[in-house]
């Protein structure tokens, strides 16, 4: 922009630039390394070792868990069970995503369990008797309410400089109270039953077989195309891009995952009636992961969340508004939690006054952290919550299959969580000493 390359005559020695035709390459000598497959792998290995292990630990953990459960119960990897697991996992994943907005900032929301249930309860009351309101109205209202609760927490944290941990701990306690009050006030005993079939279909409805294929193929074409175009435009601009093989491998991997999902979900998993197709819940979760990842990775807002989480003072001096960006993160946590609450209520078919919002939020945080988000701020992606949520659902589901009850389930989840934070801590150490 400014001062485009005008080497002054008095330019000091720095031979590399003086005789180089392309000073561009001088700034980064890595390109040569990474344009070949071998170089790419080496760069990748180096990153691993310096603590940027990415999603590798959680994927490895998932494979180990799968092997264990499959050897203990042959139905674990059946199409029906995998689909079931994905539906169970949808709540953990979405609540984990709600946490990611704040974990990136180095904040936390302990209230998402109850707040999500409150949103669902409000929607359930609105679509229930005596005067059922339309779903298209009631669902957004529930989500707006949870978003508003997030805004309230955010305002308290930002304006009064209270720790989010404490504000949302109050929210956890108060939220349980509000939930009981809402449910009991509905006059239907301890639960609000949901009769609206469209709402219940959030988790029990499926795409038709053909629709499953069409949606998946469309998604693979679009995202594969985007990956390809992005890498190509980097190469065209003379920037370091992954070797073509790697780009193609990514696309093939994406396509394979898509086909596997369709094949698994399109298998008939019903016993008396036919039950097949990709559950809406899975489609909703994937769409949500894509949308929110896009916000984090490709927008200024997302960039600022990472910056604030790592060094708020640096962000402030760069002209980033700390207040607004943090407030929006709190709002998005509330909104995402609201959506998670809808999935939760749809799966149970009701909202009860004894929802365990405490355990739910711990699972949510655990999902994000197991996936690779950091509790120390500055690091976390939506896909972390996706993978971590699937890990938790795997434990939950696998334990159930082999007949181990809640006691073991909690203990194993605790171990996995400990393993995950250990990886996180080791990774941090790796980074700082490198």
């Amino acid at each position: 922009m400014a001062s485009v390359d005008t080497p002054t005559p008095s330019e000091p020695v720095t031979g590399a630039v003086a005789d180089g035709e392309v000073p561009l390459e001088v700034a980064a000598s890595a390109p040569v390394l990474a344009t070949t497959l071998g170089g790419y792998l080496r760069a990748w290995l180096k990153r691993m070792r310096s603590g940027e292990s990415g999603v590798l630990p959680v994927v490895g953990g998932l494979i180990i868990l799968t092997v264990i459960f499959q050897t203990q119960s042959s139905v674990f990897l059946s199409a029906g069970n995998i689909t079931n697991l994905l539906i169970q996992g949808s709540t953990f994943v979405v609540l984990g995503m709600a946490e990611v907005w704040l974990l990136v900032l180095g904040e936390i929301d302990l209230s998402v369990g109850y707040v999500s249930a409150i949103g669902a309860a409000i929607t359930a009351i609105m679509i229930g008797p005596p005067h059922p309101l339309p779903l298209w109205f009631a669902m957004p209202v529930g989500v707006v309410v949870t978003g508003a609760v997030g805004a309230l927490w955010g305002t308290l944290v930002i304006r009064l400089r209270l720790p989010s941990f404490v504000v949302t701990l109050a929210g956890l306690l108060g939220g349980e109270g509000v939930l009981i009050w809402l449910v009991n006030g509905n006059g239907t005993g301890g639960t609000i039953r949901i009769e609206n079939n469209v709402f219940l279909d959030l988790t029990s409805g499926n795409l038709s077989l053909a629709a499953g294929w069409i949606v998946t193929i469309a998604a693979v074409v679009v995202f594969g195309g985007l990956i390809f175009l992005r890498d190509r435009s980097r190469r065209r601009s003379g920037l370091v891009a992954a070797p073509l093989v790697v780009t193609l491998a990514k696309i093939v991997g994406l396509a394979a995952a898509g086909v596997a999902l369709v094949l698994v979900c399109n298998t008939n998993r019903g016993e008396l009636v036919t039950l097949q197709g990709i559950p809406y819940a899975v489609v909703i979760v994937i769409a949500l992961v894509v949308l929110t990842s896009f916000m984090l990775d490709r927008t200024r807002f997302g960039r600022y969340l990472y910056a604030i989480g790592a060094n708020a003072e640096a962000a402030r001096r760069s002209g980033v508004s700390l207040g607004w960006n943090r407030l929006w993160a709190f709002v998005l946590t509330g909104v995402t939690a609201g959506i998670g609450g809808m999935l939760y209520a749809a799966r149970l078919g009701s909202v009860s006054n004894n929802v365990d919002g405490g355990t739910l939020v711990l699972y949510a945080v655990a999902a994000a952290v197991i996936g690779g988000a950091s509790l120390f701020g500055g690091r976390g992606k939506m896909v972390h919550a996706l993978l971590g949520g699937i890990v938790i659902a795997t434990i939950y589901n696998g334990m159930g299959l082999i007949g181990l009850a809640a006691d073991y389930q909690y203990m194993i989840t605790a171990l996995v969580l400990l393993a995950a934070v250990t990886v996180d801590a080791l990774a941090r150490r790796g980074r700082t000493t490198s």
Partner: protein
Amino acid sequence: MTVVAEGRPGGAPAAEGAPLLQLRGISKSFGAVQALVHVDLDVPAGQVTALVGDNGAGKSTLIKTISGIWAPTSGEIRWCGEPVSIRSPREADDLGIATVYQDLALCDNLDIVQNMYLGHEILSKRLLDENRMELTAKQTLADLSVTTVQSVRQPVGSLSGGQRQSVAVARAVMRDAKLVIMDEPTAALGVSQTAQVLDLIKRLAERGIAVIVISHNLSDVFAVADRLAVLYLGRLVDSGPITDYDTQRAVELITTGAANGNGAPTNGRGHHPGTGE
């Protein structure tokens, strides 16, 4: 010195000979503490002005009034000969004043490009235009002959102290800065990295940028500066071309506020506009 950045409408007054930045009678008090007392200082373009002084002399306070963090209690700041008021870091930024703070203010989790553009991201269709940012960032680093970083996409947390300093400077330069202020740029660095940063400072001046460097290290100061300004208990006790000083005289000025030895110190108000070399 070649002024590299072209097409700058505000460049005219500087050509008439007024130093880029002139401080006239700048005072700043924090309650009872008089941190700055009637400071006059000229900072010409294309030269490195070293600001020295003991701890608590008011160096940081002085650069903070220039970079819009504190408003001076009294006094006038002239920019290209025109009186200006700098009320916020944004306004300093808009004038072309970039400050590289001692703690650098970088985000370790973001890569070099992301740090260089933090707060000033290039967007296309409301989304981050990563390719354009990366190209420009690389170009800026290459222009400054910053050759030691492996990839501009590596997180800043993985860089050495000298590299971090280079990124912070490049970030300032990229925004078309006319004045770059650096607070203790070499304090945390080893020998070779210090050399690297001093080199970079010289290159900034060669590009026609005015540089103010705060430093405690007199050998660094004599290695890099064109001009020296000495603060003592909030007063600017002396300033002038570096050739007027030697280490002994500088040390005396820093520690006692006066030079007893030979040479006629231009005590107090320093010099008049245009008294460059």
